[in-house]
């Protein structure tokens, strides 16, 4: 097990069990969706703003930017859905895919890398697309898998990783700025800002339909998640009366703007404040759960079934905030 698997170094049996549960359940996203024949999955392409579109369906949202230079994607969804996703992209552009940015490592966002890179080649291609990701994404994808997990093919690996706080390039007539937000959903999260189109793609740092998935096993943390949400709010600028302006494409779920992110950030900040107080008072996890510290938000963001339940969220918040600094 590499150091990233237990990033906080408190390797008790209890902690390992919880981390493995989260790890396993996150992998379950793929299993659940793979169980569906791709033909049964409905993908919807929606215009966002400027050159930018979003492809929504099973798996993570795929941001699509098109123009005279070709096609750029933010995330690639699940591998089995790649041909279907590509067919939707081809309705917008027959140009080559030249850039792919992975917002993080999970396979509902990176699973289609290899297939999309292959399908996106045209006679205009000068080679496979650049696949950009923060260096921790590459580290995790190239780490030999444990157990029965399949090896991730090399064609799916990022080939243009970055390790500085930002990376930028110019494509289809606009600046594209990639921001690393550390230790948030994972330790390799990126936000992708299309500066002329005024669209920000956030990956799973922002998922308005559910509590944030704090993937502790892959270096996520509550405070990092809050910092990342505040970074989104710094980057976005609303139009009149806190509406519109910069549009936000979340990792999963509907199109949003800054006001939606503000609401989400406030939710997580309030929950953090409550947990800090209860942990400071010496309350155990069981006592905290009994106090129902997320009751006011559970019907909006919580779940009792599925791969990320309210109970798991509470476990993650407690563990993340209990770590010795």
């Amino acid at each position, binding site marked *: 097990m590499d150091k990233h698997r237990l990033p906080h170094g408190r390797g008790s049996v209890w902690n390992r069990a919880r981390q493995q549960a989260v790890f396993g359940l996150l992998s379950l996203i793929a299993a659940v969706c793979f169980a569906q024949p791709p033909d049964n999955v409905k993908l919807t392409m929606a215009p966002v703003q400027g050159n930018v579109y979003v492809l929504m369906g099973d798996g993570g949202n795929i941001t699509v930017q098109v123009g005279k230079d070709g096609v750029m994607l933010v995330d690639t969804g699940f591998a089995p859905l790649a041909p279907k996703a590509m067919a939707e992209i081809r309705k917008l552009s027959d140009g080559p895919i030249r850039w792919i940015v992975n917002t993080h490592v999970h396979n509902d966002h990176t699973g289609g890398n290899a297939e999309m890179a292959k399908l996106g080649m045209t006679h205009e291609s000068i080679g496979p697309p650049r696949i950009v990701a923060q260096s921790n994404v590459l580290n995790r994808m190239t780490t030999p898998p444990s157990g029965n997990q399949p090896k991730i093919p090399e064609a799916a690996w990022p080939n243009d990783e970055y390790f500085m706080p930002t990376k930028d390039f110019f494509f289809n007539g606009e600046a594209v700025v990639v921001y690393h937000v550390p230790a948030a959903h994972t330790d390799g999260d990126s936000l992708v800002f299309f500066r002329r189109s005024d669209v920000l793609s956030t990956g799973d740092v922002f998922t308005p339909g559910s509590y944030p998935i704090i993937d502790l096993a892959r270096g996520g943390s509550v405070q990092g998640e809050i*910092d990342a949400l505040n970074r989104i709010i710094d980057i976005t600028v609303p139009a009149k*009366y806190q509406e519109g302006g910069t549009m936000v494409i979340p990792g999963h779920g509907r199109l949003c703007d800054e*006001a*939606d992110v503000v609401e989400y950030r406030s939710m997580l900040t309030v929950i953090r404040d409550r947990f800090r107080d209860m942990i400071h008072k010496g309350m155990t996890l069981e006592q905290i759960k009994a106090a129902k510290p997320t009751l006011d938000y559970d019907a909006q963001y919580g779940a009792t079934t599925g791969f990320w339940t309210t109970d798991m969220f509470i476990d993650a918040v407690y563990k993340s905030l209990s770590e010795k600094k």
Partner: protein
Amino acid sequence: MSLPVFAQVDFTGEWAPLYHEDGPERLPGPELGDYTELPINAAARMAGDTYDADRISVVPEYQCRPHGGDYSMRGLGNLRIWRDIDQASEKLIAIHTHMLAWDSERTIWMDGRPHPPDYAPHTWQGFSTGVWDGNMLTITTTHLKTNYMRRNGIPRSDKAVFTEHWTRHGDYLTVVTVIEDPVYLTEPLVRSDNWYVDPGQNIGIFGCEYAPEVPRPEGTVPNHLPGQNSFLHEFANWYGLPYEATRGGAETLYPEYRKKIANEYHPPDHCERYCKCTNLIDCNLNAK
């Protein structure tokens, strides 16, 4: 009826609000901890109890937030209504409203178009479609952003849908709003508001610029920790109400509840708070 039809009643023109209902909630504003007349659940109650009104000054992104479409008709300021008529068919395409508060504008589509898909953005005013029921205009609004149900921290979620019924009686407009919110309500919340024709009015520019007003650590979101909000009993104490009656919930909406608390209701000997409150100017806190 979902087909476009001719307008039965003309609502166009300038309207001024009447404030004879639901004071002091509408003006000068709701008391902290006053959840009366709201069929809320425990989640909404907890949100209200932990809300800190500093949020709307300390957090710049909250400073210029407008009312939601469901709250607008309770808001302050005048109202203008106009309509789009298709010149070829003379059919009513849309009714528009503009209100002083935050320059809020709504479009009520009357041409039978569907509501947007689930993935579409949500807005403060939401997406509205209207149909005629005789001379009554019935409007359905979806795709709202999360906002407040009452301006003391009781929230209304972005999953809420509200229905309005507009009726005109001469120079008066009555708007009945029914909010259904699966997140925070156990029953629909029904409210009514009235307006009168005021053709000579001018609606000014509202204007709002957000800016940091208070030094604070970045990302601060003021809130009261559960069980530590010392203001929650004030409302009950001021008005002589049993505390439980101020906590809202469906039971407290019905006449039978008055009998239940009759022995615990001890109104003050004389009015001490918002005793004279008929418009924005004369709403005095401690008038005798």
